[in-house]
């Protein structure tokens, strides 16, 4: 399979996941958005050299992952793709920040290594939480949640259209690249000229399609405003879920549970 095809089906998979049925999927999108944001905020707000106190926060992604029936491998793969960028952010910390912070039997660990570790843990937590949010919430639900949380409608509608036509455009690109490959045989690197003409074709196709979409919208009475039906209701389970998770976040943020546990057990 061509590289582009693979990517196409990858996005498709993420989208398919969001239409499963589970406890997590059935929660109100607003609640999920809110708890995820609270989670990210808590994780990010720890001091620079904190490691142990952050670890308990893994309960949240693990819970969503297992309750939402999301394959772990899929999320790990996604994390792996993004990780080089994050690694780059903290890669020089051990070099510059050489002050010792822990020492174990003469083996000294510098502050730089700890902060790098801290960055990586935070990255794994926040990015996996974001991915899990998308994997357990339909995009439509997320957009509706944003709309009801007073995000300007223009942005919400833009997102909706982006979502709807992302697949159409990606499909079109995929077919175009297939067609090129079919007749390019083993020539691996396509010339700039070809690339330009492919982008040009896609651009023209997009413009023409947008015109036809606009026609279709007009013929169904579009007057500049997209009306969305409100269909989600926050019920008892949602409220309990939000209260419980956010309370846990605050407790974990305020008290050093790892330390307390360690002391209690030790």
């Amino acid at each position, binding site marked *: 399979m061509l590289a582009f095809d693979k990517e196409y089906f990858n996005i498709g998979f993420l*989208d*398919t996941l969001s*239409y499963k049925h589970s406890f997590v999927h059935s929660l109100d999108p607003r609640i999920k958005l809110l708890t995820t944001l609270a989670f990210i905020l808590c994780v990010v707000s720890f001091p620079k050299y904190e490691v142990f106190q952050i670890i308990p926060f893994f309960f949240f992604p693990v819970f969503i992952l297992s309750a939402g029936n999301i394959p772990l491998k899929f999320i790990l793969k996604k994390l792996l793709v993004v990780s080089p960028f994050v690694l780059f952010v903290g890669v020089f910390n051990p070099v510059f920040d050489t002050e010792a912070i822990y020492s174990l039997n003469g083996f000294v660990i510098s502050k730089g290594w700890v902060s790098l570790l801290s960055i990586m843990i935070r990255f794994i937590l926040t990015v996996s939480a974001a991915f899990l949010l998308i994997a357990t919430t*339909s*995009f*439509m639900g997320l*957009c509706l949640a944003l709309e009801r949380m007073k995000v300007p409608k223009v942005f919400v509608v833009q997102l*909706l*259209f982006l*979502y*709807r*036509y992302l*697949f*159409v455009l990606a499909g079109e690109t995929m077919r175009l690249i297939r067609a090129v490959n079919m007749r390019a045989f083993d020539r691996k690197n396509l010339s700039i000229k070809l690339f330009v003409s492919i982008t040009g074709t896609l651009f023209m196709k997009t413009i023409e*399609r947008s015109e*036809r*979409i606009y*026609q*279709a*919208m*007009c*013929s*169904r*009475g*579009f*007057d500049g405003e*997209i*009306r*969305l*039906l409100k269909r989600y209701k926050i019920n008892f389970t949602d409220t309990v879920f939000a209260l419980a998770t956010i309370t846990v976040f605050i407790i974990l943020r305020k008290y050093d549970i790892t330390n307390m546990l360690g002391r209690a057990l030790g």
Partner: protein
Amino acid sequence: MSHHIVEFKDVYYTYPDGTEALKGVTFRIHHGESVGIVGANGTGKSTLILQMNGFLLPTAGTIRIGDLQLDKKTRSEIGKKVGVVFQNPDDQLFMPTVFDDVSFGPLNMGLTIERVIERVDEALRTAGCYELRDRPPHHLSLGQKRAVTIAAVISMQPDILAMDEPAASLDPKARRQLITLLKGFKHTKIITSHDLDLILDVCERCIVIANGKVKADGPAREILLNQQLLDENNLELPLSLQRR
């Protein structure tokens, strides 16, 4: 009711790039009639459909839909009367779920929420795709997408249905279901297609367009049996009438 008339009088249309698509089209379609519009590729069939709901305005000549003459002021009113189903369902299903797409028209008509939901459910049932209600359009097959586009249009309860190549690239069973569906509608129907068997099945009248003009207009059975006429227009005898 005699007012669901579609009348083209000497209609000309030239695209901004200079392509003359229609060169004097005249016909009159009465209430409840189903009319097939056939012709070779590039003879102006799609242009004709785009004129019906006022998306394109004729460069010359007049179009009347019911009691209204099509112009800039009446085009939105006419848009409610004529439901157009476009060639490519991906152009028409622009909302993220089937339900949202079908409810788009009724919501714009200012109906109450209960009425909208009622209409959407009814339209989805009529088009035989109620179970697709919460699915996103990009996960549907072409036949399913087609059914949803039809539901989206009939949810607005138009008087006239205009369709551009409704059976294009459908599998035989989906095509047969579409034909049964179309036969069940009491609306005035205007269908362009190269699928002459579909026209023969669904329409009692047939108009042949050639080079932007009406070449022939009459009962579908007569027109679609006229071998010479069909030949001249890059068409051929419907398969069901061909002797093997």
